[in-house]
């Protein structure tokens, strides 16, 4: 049972990160390869506050979210004009730079040892120390975050983000402040990722840099692409499905155990290529946010141009 609970929590954490990556990559059309490191930033912030200052891990997570938002946003803003390829690579380099920082800033992060004995949170006298209690805590947090993200995904805000993906210039011509829009989406995505990192720190109670290596970023991309770019629900489904399948690989009789790890990675590679080639929109493709069919009750107003106003009697002459 505890195995299921632990796996479930890990799925929740990954699902949050995959969703926030999807918000960037799928909805707003902004590639990002530093998600794992950003999660690390959140995890370290939370863990340090909890171990050094004795703050409840919940507030640590909140601080991790703030830190994630801050770093994600600063980077994205600094790089906002880059063309696709340059940005793509720069985000990989940024992942490496953050990872190296976690590894080398030994005075703070304790280098490759990482931080251990991270206390699980205590809120209003109730301590979430046992696995069951922490599961409740994580699930509650994840439910709130995922709920918010899903709510945002169906809003006019997300519509504007999709517009940003399709054409920034056009969106500006319609009076949208695309810079502010970017700022917001980077902040939301970074905050959710940072918070998830904090939750992970509480789950493992030990964190170390190699938990946040670039490989994890790639796996997160697999989740997003397989679930469906632009559909946050899809990311959740993909996280749960792929992790289950990954575990199921260990059940195949007759394969040598030394090959399981390689096979699992191979599996992710095959999923990525297969989805891109044969089901490019993913398991659950993106659907319109405001489909007419969803609002059968709304009737068009009488005169479509009435709101433009009427010409006054003042006839001008040439």
């Amino acid at each position, binding site marked *: 049972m505890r195995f299921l609970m632990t796996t479930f929590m890990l799925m929740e954490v990954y699902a949050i990160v995959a969703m926030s990556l999807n918000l960037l990559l799928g909805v707003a059309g902004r590639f990002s390869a530093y998600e794992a490191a950003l999660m690390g930033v959140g995890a370290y912030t939370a863990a340090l506050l909890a171990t050094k200052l004795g703050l409840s891990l919940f507030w640590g997570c909140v601080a991790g979210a703030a830190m994630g938002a801050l770093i994600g946003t600063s980077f994205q803003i600094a790089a906002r004009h880059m063309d696709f390829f340059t940005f793509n690579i720069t985000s990989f380099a940024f992942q490496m730079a953050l990872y190296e920082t976690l590894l080398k800033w030994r005075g703070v992060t304790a280098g490759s040892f990482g931080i251990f004995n991270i206390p699980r949170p205590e809120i209003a006298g109730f301590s979430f120390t046992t696995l069951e209690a922490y599961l409740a805590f994580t699930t509650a947090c994840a439910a709130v975050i995922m709920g918010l993200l899903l709510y945002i995904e169906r809003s*006019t805000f997300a519509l504007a983000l999709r517009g940003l993906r399709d054409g920034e210039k056009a969106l500006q011509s319609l009076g949208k402040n695309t810079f502010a829009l970017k700022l917001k989406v980077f902040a939301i995505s970074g905050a959710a990722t940072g918070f998830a990192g904090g939750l992970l720190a509480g789950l493992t109670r030990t964190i170390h840099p190699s938990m946040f290596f670039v490989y994890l970023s790639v796996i997160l991309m697999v989740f997003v692409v397989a679930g469906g770019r632009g559909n946050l629900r899809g990311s959740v489904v993909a996280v749960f499905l792929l992790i289950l399948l990954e575990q199921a690989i260990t059940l195949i009789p007759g394969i040598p155990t030394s090959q399981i790890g390689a096979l699992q990675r191979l599996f992710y590679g095959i999923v990525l290529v297969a989805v891109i080639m044969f089901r490019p929109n993913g398991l659950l493709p993106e659907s319109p946010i405001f489909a007419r069919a969803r609002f059968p009750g709304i009737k068009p107003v009488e005169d479509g141009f009435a709101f433009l106003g009427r010409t006054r009697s003042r006839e001008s002459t040439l």
Partner: protein
Amino acid sequence: MSVEAIIEVRHVCRNYGDLVALDDVSIDIPAGKFTALIGPNGAGKSTLLNVISGFERPVSGQVLLSGKDITDVPGHRRVALGITRSFQDVEIFPTLTVLENVLLGFQDQLGERLCRLLLTPRAVKRQRDQFIAQALAILKTVGIIDERPDEKAGNLSYGQQKLLALARMLPTNAQVFMLDEPGSGLPRPMVAHMGALLQRIAKEHGKSVLLVDHNMELVLEYAERVIVMHHGALLAQGPPDYVRRHPEVIRVYLARIDQDPPERADSGTPTVRTAGHA
């Protein structure tokens, strides 16, 4: 020239390296009129549009909206002040539905603000429903594209996309609608439809329409006023009949036709030569 100008372009210069796109241009766009801006390729029309809409900054000179200097106002904020535009390469949002494309045109949407989304979901919803009703009506009035509001905009035909680009601008309720080649590549009936719509927006609703196009049918039959540019400078302006008989204009356009790349003519619309003979 006693026309009340809504946009005044004053001594605007703009160059791309050695290429001078606008050379000390001063133009008035009259309020509440359907104005067309024409000129051969490379005359600086699109650059002028970009400068007015704030997508490019002029090297020198000013842009005034109703007498107010807006030269330094960024493009997206000019929409609230009353200027919106379309693009030559359509630039609709291909993965959004037709309805969603139009919905994005509305200003001050509560649903775009995160705090309103979280704190006043009801108000957001109410406003959104209003906008949807409005958008559906716009689609209906614009016509042709209202059949399938849930169709992906990218799946529409080229002509329909041009109409959608127009429909999408309307909810901004700007004072000035600037359209970059809405008629190019359209079949003839569609051109007439587009022309009538633009005329209606100007005549019935008192909006200023500024059109840049090579389609002379659209320009000469529907516009009230025509501005001709050549080599980054103003060549002539006046009512269509005046402009079409202007000797300089004829000279420039005849020269243009000789060197016009063939794919321009495939729009199936009369070029200036036929219009000139009419």
